[in-house]
C-alpha cells in the first residue's frame, strides 16, 4: 500500500515536470504570425507632418511637385552655426566611421557597441518618429562619442539623421545628416546643435518618382527641412540606432537612457500613400538587439501604438 502511494507521488512529480518543460524552453519561441499593420489615423498623420508639407499639399501640389520644391528650397543651418563649426563637427563624425584597423592577426579591439532596432526587408519609403537622445555621456577615458540616429536605406545606400556628441567638444550635441551616395568626404552635413533631453521630431522620406537623378528624398528635424538629395532606391529598410564609441573596449561608461518612440513607416500601396505604426503587427519581423555593455528595452507604452526603443549603459 505504501509503495503504491510512493508510486503515485512519483507519477505526479513526473507529470508536473513534463508540464514545466514547454515553459522552460519557451525562450526563443515561434514568432507570432504577422499582420498587415496598424494604419496611422488622419489626426496623428496630420500632427506628425511638418506644417510646410501640409501647406504645400493644401495648395494642391503633387508628391513630385513637393519633392522638387524641397530639393530647390534653401536649407540654411541653425542661426550661429558657422561653416567653421560644421567643418570641425564633420571632422569628428568622420573619425569613427572610417577607422578600420589594419591588424594582421585576430584580436579583440573593437570600440563600437550598438543598441539597435531594425527591419531587414526593404518595403518602406520613409520613417517618421521622435527621438530623445539623453545625456550621451562622454569622457576622455570612457565613451568618446555617441551617435543617436535613424537610417533608411537599401543595397548599401542609405540616408540618416541624428544627434552626435563627442568628447572633443562635449558641450555640443550636433544635429547631423548623412547620405552614403554623396562624394567621399562630403557624406556628412551638420545643421546645428540641440537640447538632447527633449523629444525631437525626425522624418526621412523618399519620393516616388525617379526624376532622372534618382528618387528625391527629404530629411526633416523638428519640422524643418535640413537636407535633401537623391537616392537610387524607393523601397528601403529602416532602423533606429544608438552607437557608442570608446577609446578602449573595456572603458564604456555609464550612460543615461535615450529613446526612440511613436515611430511610423511610410509605404505606398497602389495610389495610396499609407503609413503604419512601427509595432509587431507589421508584416515584417522587427529585430532589436544590444551589444554588452549596452542595454535595451523595447516596449509599447500605454497610450502609444508603436515601439519605444530605450538604450543605456549601467
Amino acid at each position, binding site marked *: 500500500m505504501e*509503495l*503504491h502511494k*510512493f*508510486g503515485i507521488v*512519483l*507519477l505526479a*512529480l*513526473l507529470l508536473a*515536470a*513534463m508540464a514545466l*518543460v514547454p515553459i522552460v*524552453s*519557451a*525562450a*526563443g*519561441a515561434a*514568432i*507570432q504570425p*504577422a499582420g498587415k499593420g496598424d494604419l496611422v489615423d488622419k489626426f496623428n498623420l496630420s500632427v506628425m507632418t511638418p506644417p510646410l508639407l501640409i501647406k504645400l499639399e493644401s495648395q494642391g501640389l503633387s508628391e513630385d511637385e513637393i519633392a522638387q520644391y524641397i530639393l530647390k528650397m534653401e536649407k540654411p543651418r541653425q542661426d550661429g552655426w558657422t561653416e567653421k563649426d560644421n567643418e570641425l563637427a564633420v571632422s569628428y563624425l568622420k573619425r569613427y*566611421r572610417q577607422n*578600420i*584597423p*589594419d*591588424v594582421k*592577426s*585576430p*584580436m*579583440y*579591439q*573593437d570600440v*563600437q557597441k*550598438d543598441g*539597435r532596432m*531594425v527591419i*531587414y*526587408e*526593404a518595403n518602406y519609403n520613409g520613417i517618421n518618429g521622435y527621438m530623445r537622445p539623453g545625456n550621451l555621456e562622454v569622457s576622455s577615458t570612457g565613451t568618446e562619442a555617441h551617435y543617436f540616429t535613424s*537610417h533608411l*536605406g*537599401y*543595397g*548599401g545606400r*542609405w540616408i*540618416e539623421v541624428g544627434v552626435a556628441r563627442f568628447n572633443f567638444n562635449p558641450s555640443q550635441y550636433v544635429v547631423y545628416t548623412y547620405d*552614403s551616395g554623396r562624394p567621399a568626404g562630403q557624406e556628412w552635413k551638420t545643421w546645428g546643435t540641440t537640447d538632447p533631453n527633449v523629444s525631437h521630431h525626425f522624418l526621412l522620406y523618399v519620393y516616388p518618382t525617379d526624376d532622372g537623378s534618382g528618387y528625391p528624398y527629404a530629411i526633416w528635424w523638428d519640422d524643418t527641412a535640413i537636407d535633401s538629395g537623391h537616392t537610387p532606391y524607393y523601397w528601403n*529598410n529602416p*532602423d533606429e*540606432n544608438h*552607437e557608442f564609441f570608446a577609446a578602449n573596449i573595456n572603458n564604456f561608461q555609464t550612460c543615461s537612457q535615450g529613446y526612440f518612440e511613436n515611430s511610423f513607416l511610410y509605404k505606398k500601396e497602389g495610389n495610396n500613400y499609407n503609413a503604419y505604426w512601427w509595432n*509587431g503587427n507589421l508584416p515584417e*519581423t*522587427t*529585430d*532589436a*538587439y*544590444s*551589444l*554588452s555593455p549596452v542595454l*535595451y528595452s*523595447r516596449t509599447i507604452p500605454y497610450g502609444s501604438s508603436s515601439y519605444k526603443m530605450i538604450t543605456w549603459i549601467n
Partner: protein
Amino acid sequence: MKKKNPFFLGSIILAICFSFVIFTSGCLGEEKISEHDAVSIAVNDSRTHNLIQNHKFNVVDVSLASITSGETNPRDMYAVTIKVQNGTPERIIVFVSFNGEVVRVDSPYTAKAPDDLIKKINETPEHPG
C-alpha cells in the same frame, strides 16, 4: 493467484524519471560554448563567408548580446564583430547562441552590405557542427 511484485511499479516510475531527466537535460540546462568557440563558429559559417567574400578580415570583438526577434523574449548570446578590409560590408555582427547556433548575421548601416544580401543570408539558416 499471481503475487504482485511490490517493487515493480516504483522501479518502472523511477526508470521513467531518469529517462525523462536525461532526455530533457538539453532543454533545462543549455551547455554554454566558450567565446573562442563562438568566434570559430561565426567565421566558419557560410553566411559570414558570403559577406566577407575573399576580402581580408579581422575578428575585432566578441561580447555578450541580447537580441529580440519579432515578439519573442530577449535571448542572451554572443555577438562576434568582424571588420572587413576593402570589402562592401565593412562591419559584420554574427550572433551565436550559447549552444553554438548562428542566429543572425547582421551588417549595420555603418557597414555597406546590401540589405537584400543580409536578408537572403539570414533566410538560409545553417546549424554548425
